[in-house]
C-alpha cells in the first residue's frame, strides 16, 4: 500500500526536510532499510540485488514516467534508460530515500524523452485506447460508478496529454507523486514560483478542456 493515494498525500503534507533526504543514518523504515541494503549489495557488484530494487519500483516508476511522456514506448525506453543510469551511478547515491533517488533519475529521463519527443513528434497517445487506464473494479462494485470512474479517468488522461510538458510534469509530481513545491523545483531545475505557476496554470488549462465534462467529476 505504499503507492496508495492517501499515503502520497500524507507525504506531501509532511515533506522530508533536506537534512532527512541527505541523511545517511540507518532508517527506522523497514522499506528504506531494505532498499539501502540492496543498494549496498548492488554497489559491491551484486546484480541480483540491483534487480530486486528494479522489481520493487519498476511499476511505480513506469506509471510516473508514462504520465509525463504519454507515448508508452517512449516512456518504457525512458524508464529502461533511467535504470541503466542508476546502475551506472550507484556510487553517486548519497543516502536518504532510494525511492526518491530513483524517481529523480526517472524524472530526468522523462524530461529528456519529452525534449526528444518535441524534436521528433510521434503519433500521439496510443495509450488512450488502453484498458489499463481504467480503474480496477471489484466484483461488488457499482457498474455505474465504475463506468463513471473509467470515463472520468479517460477524459482526464486525455486532457493531461494536451497541456504543456512542463505543466504536466509539475502536476504529476505534485498531485500524483506527492512531492512538495521545493522538491519539484529542485528536480526540474526551476524556481519555486515557476513550479507553482505551472501547477496552477496547468489545472486551469485542464479545467478549460474539461469544462463540458465536469459533471463526471462532480457526480
Amino acid at each position: 500500500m505504499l503507492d496508495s493515494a492517501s499515503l502520497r498525500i500524507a507525504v506531501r503534507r509532511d515533506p522530508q526536510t533536506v537534512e532527512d533526504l541527505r541523511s545517511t543514518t540507518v532508517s527506522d523504515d523497514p522499506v528504506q532499510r531494505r532498499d539501502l541494503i540492496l543498494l549496498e549489495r548492488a554497489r559491491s557488484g551484486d546484480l541480483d540485488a540491483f534487480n530486486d530494487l528494479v522489481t520493487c519500483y519498476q511499476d511505480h516508476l513506469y506509471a510516473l514516467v508514462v504520465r509525463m511522456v504519454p507515448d508508452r514506448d517512449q516512456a518504457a525506453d525512458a524508464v529502461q534508460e533511467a535504470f541503466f543510469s542508476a546502475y551506472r551511478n550507484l556510487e553517486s547515491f548519497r543516502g536518504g530515500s532510494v525511492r526518491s533517488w530513483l524517481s529523480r533519475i526517472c524524472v530526468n529521463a522523462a524530461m529528456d524523452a519529452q525534449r526528444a519527443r518535441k524534436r521528433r513528434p510521434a503519433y500521439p497517445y496510443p495509450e488512450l485506447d488502453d484498458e489499463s487506464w481504467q480503474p480496477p473494479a471489484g466484483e461488488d462494485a457499482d457498474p455505474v460508478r465504475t463506468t463513471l470512474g473509467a470515463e472520468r479517468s479517460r477524459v482526464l488522461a486525455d486532457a493531461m496529454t494536451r497541456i504543456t510538458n512542463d505543466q504536466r510534469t509539475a502536476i504529476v509530481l505534485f498531485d500524483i507523486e506527492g512531492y512538495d513545491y521545493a522538491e519539484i523545483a529542485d528536480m526540474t531545475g526551476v524556481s519555486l514560483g515557476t513550479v507553482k505557476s505551472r501547477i496552477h496554470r496547468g489545472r486551469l488549462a485542464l479545467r478549460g478542456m474539461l469544462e463540458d465534462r465536469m459533471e463526471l467529476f462532480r457526480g
Partner: protein
Amino acid sequence: MTNRTERGPAAHAGHDPLLIAQYAADDLDPRDRATAEALVNSCTECAELASDLRLIARATAALPETARPRDFTLSPEQAARLRRSGWRGFGQRLGLGWIRTDVGRTLAAGLTTLGLAGLLIGVVPGQLASSGGAAPPQTVGKSVDNAGGGGAAQPLATGRDQVASAGAAASAAPSVAAPEYPYGPQVDTTGEGPHASEPYSVESAPSGAPMADGRMQYTPPPASQPNYLLFASLVALTGGVALFAVRRISAG
C-alpha cells in the same frame, strides 16, 4: 478587481483565474486570500471554478496506474556493458571514482579559483604597470627598485644608497615608467643629499661599491627570476579545468 455586488459572467470575465487557482490550492498569503475569498463569495463562476479545480486535483491524484509493458531488470550482459563502458569504467579501474564525488568537485573548484587568483595577482599588476597607468609609486627617498621584468610589485629597498638594477628596464621600456627609474629626477624627501635634484644615469647610478667621487658604482642587474607564482597559477588552473572536464566526461 471586483466587489461583493458584482454578479454574472460579465463581471467574472474581469476576475483573475490564477488567483482563484491559487486560492483553490490554498496557496495564498492572508491578504490575497481575503481578496480571493471575496471573489468566490460574490461571483458564482469563481466559486464554481475553485470547486472544479479542487475536483480536478483530486481526480488527478486518483488516476489509475498504467501497466508496464515489459520487465526492466538488467541482464548480466547489460550490467557488464554498463560497468565497463566508456571513460567511467576506465576511471574506476584507475581508482579515480572520487573525482565524481563532492571531494572532486571541491578540489576542482578550489584549484581553478587559486589558478585564476594567482594569474590575477601575477599578471594584471604587470599589465597595468607596463601600460603606465596605475603603477604604484615606488620611489622612497632615493631608492630605486627593480624596474625590470614584468613590473610585478616588488618590495622596495629604502634608503638613499640602495639601488636595485635598472638597466634591463632601461632597455626594455625606457620611456614608459621613466619617472620611477633612476635616470629621471628624483625627489629627495629628506632634502639632504648632494644629488637630490640631479638625474641619475646608468654610469652614475649609485651601486654596491663607492666610486672615487663618493657615488656608488653601477653593477649590472641579476638575471631575472622565474615567475613561480605565474607557473603555479597555470598549473593549478590547468588541474582544476582538467578535473572539471573529467567529471563532465564521466557523467555522460
